[in-house]
């Protein structure tokens, strides 16, 4: 059996490519409530994340960095669902996303909560790339801990 690159389509979903080509929410915040640099020591990929808070909620989030399509697109996709959430809600999203990567069965409602980030489901079939997808989410977790320590 000879296969070409067709299987890659599962990894490189159109939504992901779109976010890689045109990352959202990259503008740096003037006065971030919290700021984190995350590096994947295995590959050197970098994510710079800033959070702006409005009371209890994440009002603004900025993500920029350097690295592969998966790590960078995940960062961009993440901003779209985290904005407006409380730290605990954002942490719950992170758990859902981790579940998605680890191959857990999520309910339809849970998948809905992740919105376009569900497009990263295909990463599961490429286990070494899972860490690329988790980089931004672990940056988020660190950034959240700075504004509201986990209970």
């Amino acid at each position, binding site marked *: 059996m000879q296969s*070409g690159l067709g299987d*890659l389509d599962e990894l490189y979903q159109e939504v992901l490519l779109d976010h*890689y080509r045109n990352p959202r929410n990259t503008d740096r915040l003037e006065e971030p409530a919290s700021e984190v640099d995350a590096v994947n020591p295995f590959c*050197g*990929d970098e994510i710079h994340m800033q959070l702006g808070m409005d009371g209890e909620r994440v009002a603004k989030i900025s993500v920029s960095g350097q690295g*592969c*399509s998966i790590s960078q697109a995940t960062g961009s996709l993440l901003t779209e669902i985290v904005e407006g959430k409380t730290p605990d809600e954002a942490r719950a999203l992170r758990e859902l996303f981790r579940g998605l990567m680890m191959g857990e069965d999520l309910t339809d409602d849970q998948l809905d909560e992740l919105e376009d980030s569900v497009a990263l489901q295909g990463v599961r079939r490429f286990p070494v790339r899972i860490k690329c997808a988790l980089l931004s989410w672990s940056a988020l977790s660190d950034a959240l801990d700075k504004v509201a320590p986990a209970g």
Partner: protein
Amino acid sequence: MASGAPLDVQRIRADFPILSRQVNGHTLTYLDNAATSQKPTQVIQSLVDYYERYNSNVHRGVHTLSIEATEAYEDARGKVQRFINAPSPESIIWTRNTSESLNLVAYTWAEANVGAGDEIVTTAMEHHSDIVPWQQLAYRKGATLKIIRETETGRLDMEQAAEFITERTKIVAATHMSNVLGTVNDVKALADAVHRVGGVMLVDGAQSVPHMPVDVQALDCDFMAFSAHKMLGPTGIGVLYGKPEILEVMPPWMFGGDMILEVTFEDASWNDLPYRFEAGTPNIADAIATGAAVDYLAELGMDRVWAHEQQITAYALDKFKDLNGITLLGPREVEDKGAVISFSHDSVHSHDLGTALDQLGIAIRTGHHCAMPLVRSHGIISAARASFYIYNTEAEVDILVDGLNEAEEYFSKAGIL
């Protein structure tokens, strides 16, 4: 075997069971040899033989198995000694890998001989294993670390080296061959320079010993470090060569069985070389298998190994010229360049390239190659690397190039070019 005749690559390939493995529906194309090499049946079999026939501790028993194990273990040391033309078996110390060998020098010789205000000289081409121990030593001692830069053509700036090596220099630590650029450095010239000022020369031979004839006496280096796993041998074993007169006065760093001569409850005296630096039960099986790996390479002849790799590198460099969007790191010509080709793509990240090639059964390395400062100095954070060995063919270079073209087409359709 006629020296000078090209390697019989098809015959060599038959010795490597893994090369017939299927990966994602394709026969494996293994181009990650700078990370670790594959192992021939002869090496695998020597491990099996040891465990099936004479597994036993060394230097301890008077029984037959122990005598056989000790003989085989010391025999392997002798093979390594002859392989790099070291003056005596005592100058070969078994370690876990190159990293441990380098750390051994940093924690023993350098700990005793480098002080505040002294200088350590290394290069911009080093693996993290040959940078971080020196940074840490410099912090501990208040010494200064100087880094010889890379020229625009991917060579070591020997003029800067001459400037940096001064009366204050205690040690020069340099790689013989860069694991990223493939550059072969003139470590003999560095050794001469540091000897003129009374310092010592440490060579990281992790990439040179597996691929070219290496003669530590001709290079006149004081230390050389390398790993068996990159030269057909098993993982978990490496070598530190040291000039006997230096090892003789170097303090030990790990204490325990085998490294002592006499122990009382109050004190201990140290065993002879090389055992002084080999505390505890050593990695017997892997040392013996390293001997088998060295036999295999010696039988081929290292001049022929080098010639084969020069040929394949020249072929690959030529083929790479026609690729779109690819920038090579390091020398573009094969002179003084080993079989390592690192490259970056203008718009496709090396991981995405690596994943695509893996779909085609092609194994390359991607990332920072444990040389973050070097890769970053090229304005990128990650590169792809193909590295070749005795079993690789020009046909495999073609497979790589076709794969890169296919990936280019895929990512171009995906709109990320």
